């Protein structure tokens, strides 16, 4: 057991700190829902130039070109959280599409799509779920029929996050209707401006249009937009998910949030007394701190597995379930300590933190559902992790990030 990262890494940490200190007033404010703005794109460029974003993406594709080093990535994450500086973009394009292209894309696809994606100039959405294919993703019915050099696509996607601002979609389409369920699917890249493609925003519980329906009527997409081979889309999609294991249960988010609740409890008062003096809330806070720390060191254990290239087994399967739940509970505590002030929203007078605790409380419930529901996660943990007999259905792969 050795919790220190070693001398070389501490030097890297010092370097990272110095960068953050020099740029303390140059980054946009940390706000989870401000999407792509001019200032966030500028910040992304700075980060790439210094190796704090797109770190391991080869220079040929616009990245920083460093060797993969999981510990360095971890140090970057730690220091950025501590400094309260926004990390590089984390979105479906960067976290899911780019690693997939690096592994399975053609040279042309890599050159064309990776550079603008990592700069935040090309926005992607994930076209997987359909009205009748959510948990049962492999039941998807959107059809792609071969016609000359194109596929002609008809059907519908739903719950597609960011489709309303996306330039491109990575999409699962059934191209071999006669093949077995999992074998007839292809992974296709579709420009959102293609004629016949219609995006209709859907408002979520939070009151924002956070996801969409996407309709396809004779949408023509060139065959060269296929990633991997035809009919192997299920395999390609799962390759993406492998890269993304744990992104939704990211312990940095929980640590950040815990620190936020601590600050809140120091500041809020009830009958003139600091909420931190309330033993009930303090107990909940301390219990959550224990869970946050457990997930943090759990993350270090998983990190060790990934450095060694060993399989963490069931330990890796619980991250999405536990991480999303923990974030939701942290937001619930924040709301409870604010009492009536905690239900204020939007532009209300007296609002705290722009209503972001309420937004998180609701959005985190969305994340408990999105990317493979909690119930599906538990099935996976029980069946694949613990070897319990399978229920009378096919297994479902761990779905990746909703956002």
């Amino acid at each position, binding site marked *: 057991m050795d919790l220190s990262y070693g001398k070389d890494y501490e030097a890297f940490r010092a370097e990272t700190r110095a960068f953050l200190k020099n740029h303390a007033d140059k980054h946009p404010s940390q706000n989870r829902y401000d999407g792509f703005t001019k200032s966030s794109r500028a910040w992304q460029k700075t980060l790439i130039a210094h190796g704090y974003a797109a770190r391991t993406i080869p220079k040929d594709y616009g990245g920083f070109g460093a060797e993969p080093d999981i510990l360095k990535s971890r140090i970057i994450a730690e220091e950025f959280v501590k400094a309260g500086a926004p990390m590089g973009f984390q979105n479906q394009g960067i976290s899911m599409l780019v690693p997939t292209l690096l592994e399975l894309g053609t040279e042309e696809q890599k050159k064309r799509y990776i550079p603008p994606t990592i700069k935040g100039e090309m926005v992607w959405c994930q076209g997987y*779920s359909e009205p*009748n*294919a*959510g*948990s*049962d993703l492999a*039941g998807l019915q959107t059809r792609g029929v071969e016609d000359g050099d194109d596929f002609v696509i008809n059907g519908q996607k*739903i*719950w597609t996050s960011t489709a309303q601002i996306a330039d491109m979609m990575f999409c699962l389409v059934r191209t071999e209707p006669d093949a077995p369920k999992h074998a007839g699917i292809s992974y296709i890249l579709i420009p959102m401006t293609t004629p016949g493609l219609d995006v209709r925003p*859907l*408002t*979520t*519980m939070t*009151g924002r249009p956070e*996801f969409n329906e996407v309709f396809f009527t004779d949408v023509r997409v060139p065959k060269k937009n296929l990633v991997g081979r035809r009919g192997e889309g299920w395999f390609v999609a799962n390759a993406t998910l492998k890269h993304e294991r744990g992104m939704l249960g990211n312990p940095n988010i929980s640590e950040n949030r815990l620190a936020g609740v601590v600050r809140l409890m120091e500041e*809020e*008062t*009830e*009958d*003139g007394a600091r909420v931190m003096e*309330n033993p*009930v*809330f303090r107990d909940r806070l301390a219990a959550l701190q224990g869970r946050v720390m457990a997930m943090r060191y759990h993350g270090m254990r998983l990190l060790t597995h990934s450095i060694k290239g060993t399989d963490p087994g069931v330990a890796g399967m619980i991250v999405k379930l536990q991480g999303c739940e923990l974030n939701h509970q942290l937001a*619930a505590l924040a*709301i*409870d300590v*604010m*009492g*009536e*002030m*905690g*239900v*204020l*929203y*939007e*532009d*209300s*007078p*007296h609002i705290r933190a722009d209503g972001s605790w*309420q937004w998180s409380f*609701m959005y985190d*419930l*969305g994340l*408990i*559902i*999105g990317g493979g*529901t*909690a*119930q599906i996660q*538990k*099935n996976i943990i029980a069946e694949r992790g613990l070897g319990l007999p399978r*229920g009378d*259905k*096919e297994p479902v792969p761990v779905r990746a990030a909703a956002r």
Partner: protein
Amino acid sequence: MEFALSETQYMLQESVKGALSRRASLEALRAMTDTGEGRDALEASLKELALSALIPPEEAGGAGLGLLEAALVQQSLGSHAAPFSFAARSVLTPLAVMEAGTQAQKAEWLPKIAEGEMRGALALSEKSGAREDAKITEKNGRLNGRALFVMEAEDATHILTASQDGRLFLAPKNQKTVKIAGLKTIDGTRSFAECLFENAEAEPLSGENARGRSLALILSAARILESADMLGASETLLHMAVDYAKVRKQFGKLIGSFQAVKHLCAEMVAELEPARALLWFAAHDFGENPDAAPLNGCIVKAHMADVARMVSRKATEVHGGMGFAQESGVHFFFKRIGVSIQCLGGPAYLRGEAARMQGWA
């Protein structure tokens, strides 16, 4: 012993539900919260039921019914997430006048309340853990200070509030010395405001019971009504989830056939049914045994808040992505419950009060 609703209580609830299902369907609710369209029709349709006359005694032109009946009405309003002012206006204001008013005040106000001419808003939030500088003081018959989270101020004619020493006051809303600003919450179906009193005129409720106990009773009644609203909203969520589990298919099967989904539904109903009994008891006992009412109000609201939060989460989960989308309507109830949980004291505050009232702390 018979622990059940009477035929007339049951019918009262059904008649409110009937009016609401005509006027406050999910579609209507969307229109009412987006543009306000349909609110007048809802008002008109509920007006026929003369809900403002529920509590005032017969000699004042009312029906003289009790808090259990009022709670049943509030439960129905919650079950439709109805944007309709009832608790402060038609229950708490008349109760306050009946409990703490002088003979003259009762004779003057109760008939007006029964008629719906006098409509009170409730400004007592600082009595359940004051936030910021919220506090009302009285000097020479004038009120000063800030009340946060005032209920049903929209359309009110008066504001029911209490001074720091626990005396109840009714202040006319339309005076320059009363400044009202809307607050915006996650829930678009109920209205809240903050209210600034700047040397405002107000009439003290100065009957025999004026001090202490009256405020505690009004707070208790208000908490019981919040609980009833949460019960109604939770029941609707349970029904929506069960209905959805009976029609939604994944993996070629109804999702209700998966044990995980069955258990979500069973857990909701297993918590809700005893919570309903607790609510019936607290609302019934309010009139029978006023000394126990403050404690019961704390216990029922703290418990119902926990149950309702659990139900609002699980019902959303049963719906999958659809539960998170406004399309399903789940969000109306989820957010209405979210506000009720905090309104007039969250569970932690109320359990602290309950412990103090029993001499445990």
